[in-house]
């Protein structure tokens, strides 16, 4: 099973690390932000490559339109702001301007999930996967740590067409290395097992790994899959696994409707695979302010909570 390093880094730094490296070789990349360059870490692009950076101010609809225009004259725009304001506020701009014309625009949705914490429900984006998943041409990446975030950003650059990448605010444990292979649409089996398939991705994956380690010690034989690409989903990898184990459990730090769980369940149904299935997700509710750890605990996403939920499902 994956090692969890002591060291923690916010995965959004993987975004700007990748952009700094990419801009060095391709000056057509433009980073765009909407007054959140410090939070999104794109201030680093502004410092090093001011000609490759645009801050449009607090105007997310315009932000997407400008990115679209840039893509039409050969640039590769990388747009970053809080996920709530990209996927939420600018949804129609992403749908009608970016996805309909299949423009080469990359979207970085920062501060997703519960661990935004103290800012409260307005900023805890838990609906973005559902919104982006229904858009034709859109790719969705959900990296679990700073290195996977770096690799996801590089692969987004190499892909031609719209890509939405999710990042979190908090520093999270390092689970992968930059040298690891990252292929869009190809899930990673982190541990092979016979008894149950556990599927997750994003920053919550470290808690899931811890939970699985606890279960492993108690004799449970778990197959754990990191689905870093939510769309297109690696249906074959998941289907092959559940055919073997006969049981499926999804941990998705997102609203229960429309997230990773929904994506996996509908894909398996279309494959005519019926398995006993369970999920931990946010249960169709807005959360509250609080510290990240307290909120993870309260809503059932702590490693101990994940462990007991899988155990009782088992």
């Amino acid at each position, binding site marked *: 099973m994956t090692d969890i390093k002591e060291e923690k880094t916010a995965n959004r730094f993987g975004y700007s690390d990748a952009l700094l490296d990419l801009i060095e070789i391709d000056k057509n990349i433009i980073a765009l932000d909407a007054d959140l360059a410090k939070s999104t870490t794109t201030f680093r692009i502004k410092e090093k490559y001011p000609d490759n950076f645009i801050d*449009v101010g607090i105007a997310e609809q*315009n932000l997407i339109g*400008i990115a679209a225009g840039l893509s*039409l*004259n050969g640039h590769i725009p990388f747009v970053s702001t809080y996920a709530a304001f990209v996927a939420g506020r600018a949804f129609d701009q992403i749908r009608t*301007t970016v996805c*309909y014309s299949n423009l080469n625009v990359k979207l970085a949705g920062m501060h997703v999930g519960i661990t935004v914490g103290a800012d409260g429900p307005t900023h805890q984006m838990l609906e973005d996967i559902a919104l982006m998943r229904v858009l034709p041409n859109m790719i969705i990446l959900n990296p679990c740590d700073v290195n996977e975030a770096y690799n996801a950003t590089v692969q987004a650059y190499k892909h031609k067409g719209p890509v939405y990448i999710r990042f979190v605010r908090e520093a999270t444990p390092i689970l992968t290395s930059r040298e690891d292979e990252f292929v869009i649409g190809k899930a990673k089996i982190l541990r092979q097992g016979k008894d149950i398939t556990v599927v997750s991705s994003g920053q919550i994956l470290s808690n899931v790994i811890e939970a699985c380690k606890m279960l492993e010690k108690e004799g449970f034989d778990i197959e754990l899959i990191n689905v870093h690409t939510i769309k297109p989903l690696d249906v074959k990898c998941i289907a092959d696994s559940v055919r073997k184990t006969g049981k499926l459990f999804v941990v998705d730090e997102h609203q229960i409707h429309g997230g990773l769980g929904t994506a996996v369940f509908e894909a398996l149904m279309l494959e005519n695979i019926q398995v006993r299935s369970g999920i931990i997700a946010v249960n169709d509710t807005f959360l509250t302010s609080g510290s990240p750890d307290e909120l993870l605990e309260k809503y059932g996403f702590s490693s101990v909570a994940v462990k007991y939920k899988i155990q009782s499902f088992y």
Partner: protein
Amino acid sequence: MKDYAEIAKTIRRDIIEMIFAAGSGHAGGSLSLADIFAVLYFGEMNHDPSRLQWEERDRLILSKGHAAPVLYSALARSGYFDPDNLKTLRKTDSFLEGHPAMKTPGVEVGTGSLGQGLSIGCGLAVYFKKRQTSQRVFVILGDGELQEGQNWEAFMFAGHNKLNNLTAVIDLNDLQIDGNVSEVNTIEPIADKMKAFNWNYEAIDGHNIDQIQNAFKNARLSEKPFAVIAKTVKGRGVSYMENRAEWHGKPLNKEDHDKAMKELL
């Protein structure tokens, strides 16, 4: 000297034929733009229909995407595709969608959800300017469309960045689906708004060829982004459609069609 009035008449005839054949479409807001499109595609714009991907071309974005018929006619008549295709408007498998789409030769970007074109224009213009190319970007806006807030984000951005290669044409026909723009939710005083957003502007009669040409010339020389505030008549050229809100998106029957074509001889 090109006969822009004659070209505009051809465009108007195309609009009527297309919408009649389609059984639906937006005649009023297409007819109001025919003279402006004649000047743009047959004079003002630097473009080459034989080289679709020519990087140095000027760009035009029809933000009020429902006026697709005027764009399609201008594209066909200037050589982007055979005008015979125009009668396939809105038909299954046609490359002429109800609202502009990338699959049509000469269309730069899909539009149709109002208020988004000026931002796209800003994105094109900001790096044309940075690269110091002489390319220009034209964005065609409706007056009712300016009720969409995103336009004002874009006006602000363009003014702030002095995008003097960007020209917005505001088709001021004072009609939207639910009635007069001035009664539904007025956009006036539009000239003062342009000034306040750090744009230059010129108010013209949008059916007067000389005034249209002159405004675009002034736009070329402007040190700020430039708005052509074009007072137009919705449905212009077809007497029974002129200034009538119901002709925003009403289909034409045979009698409507014949009457219109007779007036456009």
